[in-house]
């Protein structure tokens, strides 16, 4: 023990603040750990991740508000296979031209459409509502059973550019698959973009659920959406 230099031992090893900063550090580390978890959780439920309300750019500035809202064009005019196929269908260039060969035929805004028709090169739209590849969503059966467009796509008549209206994550899908009744509508209101559940939706929904014999269990089977 004698071998140790007295000078080195004289002054204390730690200053007065050391304890405070040490404890502070521990506290911060703890908060950081918890905070990170909370942040990750929040991120995946936020629209940064779900993209809700964010409209992707499009080759043509197509406005649902104008076409579906002001002009009251039926959804099925463009999304023609929504009642028969898994894929709702996207209007071929010719569909656009059926009006726009006459109206605004030579506006700059519609130039991509004209080019597409001339050169027989398809338009390339950007997906607004995106599902992962491993989800097999079928539009036709949802429409057939009375789930309206706006239940998932929101009121497109209020949007200029199309944007996702809902989280479209698995929990969100399950909420409805476990209890479809609130989303079920009478046939004639399925394509009504502005549909809001009536006061007695509970009763109506339950009735429709029975009438259209929608089975409970298979709706939450994995293979219903994943194969």
């Amino acid at each position, binding site marked *: 023990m004698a071998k140790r230099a007295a000078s080195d031992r004289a002054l204390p*090893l730690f200053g007065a603040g050391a304890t405070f900063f040490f404890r502070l550090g521990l506290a911060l580390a703890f908060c950081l750990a918890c905070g990170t978890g909370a942040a990750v959780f929040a991120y995946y439920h936020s629209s940064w991740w779900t993209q809700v309300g964010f409209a992707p750019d499009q080759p043509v500035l197509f406005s649902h508000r104008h076409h579906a809202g002001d002009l009251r064009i039926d959804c099925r005019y463009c999304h023609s296979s929504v009642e028969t196929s898994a894929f709702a269908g996207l209007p071929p260039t010719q569909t656009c031209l059926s009006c726009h060969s006459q109206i605004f035929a030579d506006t700059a805004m519609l130039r991509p459409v004209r080019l597409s028709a001339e050169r027989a090169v398809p338009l390339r739209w950007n997906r607004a509502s995106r599902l992962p590849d491993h989800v097999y969503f079928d539009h036709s059966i949802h429409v057939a059973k009375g789930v309206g467009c706006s239940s998932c796509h929101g009121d497109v008549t209020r949007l200029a550019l199309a944007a996702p209206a809902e989280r479209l*994550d698995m*929990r969100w899908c399950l909420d409805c698959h476990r209890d479809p009744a609130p989303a079920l509508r009478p046939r004639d209101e399925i394509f009504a973009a502005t549909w809001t559940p009536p006061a007695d939706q509970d009763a109506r929904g339950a009735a429709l659920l029975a009438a259209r014999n929608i089975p409970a269990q298979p709706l939450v089977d994995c293979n219903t959406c994943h194969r």
Partner: protein
Amino acid sequence: MKPSLPPEPILDPALTLAKVSVQVSDVPLHLPRPRVWLAGFAAAFLLVCALVVGIANLFARGIGIWGVNVPIAWGFAIVNFVWWIGIGHAGTFISAILLLLHQAWRTSINRFTEAMTLFAVACAGLFPLLHLGRPQFFYWLLPYPDTMGLWPQFRSPLVWDVFAVSTYAMVSLVFWYVGLLPDLATMRDRAAPRWKRQVYGVLALGWRGDARHWFHYEKLYVILAGLATPLVVSVHSIVGLDFAVAILPGWHSTIFPPYFVGGAIFSGFAMVLTLVIPLRKLYHLESFITDRHLDLMAQVMLATGWVVAYGYFAEFFTAWWSRDEFDQFVLANRALGPYAVPFWGMLAANVLAPQFLWSRRIRRCVPALFAVALVVNVGMWLERYVIVVTSLHRDFLPSSWGMYHATFWDWTVFLGTIGLFLALLFFFVRLLPAIAMSEMKALVTKKGRVA
């Protein structure tokens, strides 16, 4: 607590309080024979590099670089996992169970074996991760509120594993660190340059040896030991359940949990001996770790060796007794089939080799003991290989029988983890006291310790 005193001194009578502090803390503080340490560490480090390469290649190309297939979908990864976890059992067994049993001699080795436990568990923990087809999604085995509304499937033994292994790692760490606190204080007060003292000082959390500290500390230590004891048993039981829960002939057997625990302690002590014998030679710790220690450890090995032997016997007996054609075939196939060599090797190493330990002369003959310990290490690895591979490769439908051949990359990763294990141990002896000084002092000052 009054320890039941053994007839023979377990420590060098010449030890004093001062000597304990000096001799033990001098190993990390001014390392004797630095070259030996460096050489050993370098060797281990090379293996660690191999491990890194092996893992990189695994993630780049996929699990297919290993020998696994259908039907043998588990191979080296699981074998190594079980082997490492088993080794990891000696530490807590020594520090917890022997503490409760008032085995004073444990004091010389518990700190070191606890460290060994931590590192072995770290190596073991790697494998369940690596052997996943999609390791990037390992966190799906943990419970957390995801956007899918899905949770782990808590009936699966693999999920039990996740909790068992992580709990075991955490508790062992806590137990180890709490035990270290007084010794870290000693290091703080003995270290030479100021910065070293500050580092140890921070780690010691300001331990002053205050009676209040000791008062709570000892309570905590005993209760932790009490908790760790069932934990040790549970962890390898659960690992055993990975197999016992499956319906596979050769796996589906109630003997597995106890026989796995026995095997774990068996292999653990073998590994302790393999490490302690060179260590005490290298740093002249003979006065702490006496031949009597080695003798006692050898006796534990002998006993647990018989537990394992009984396990083997029970497997064959139940297969014969059950008159289950599949079980009987699998067992016969182990002994006579294409994997007969590992099987007989396992019996020779785990059942025959320990029998030498009946002889006191061999228990006291360090080289012989070392050899037996090495053989048992290999034998216990072979046991896991036999259990995993031979049960899978010929199960119910002969049409889908297959063979398993380990690949170069299987070996790379396995040897790599051995390197990791050794490298961590080298760090440990270089930085921390390998023997629990404060407990040792208590022992040294015990009256009548000199029989």
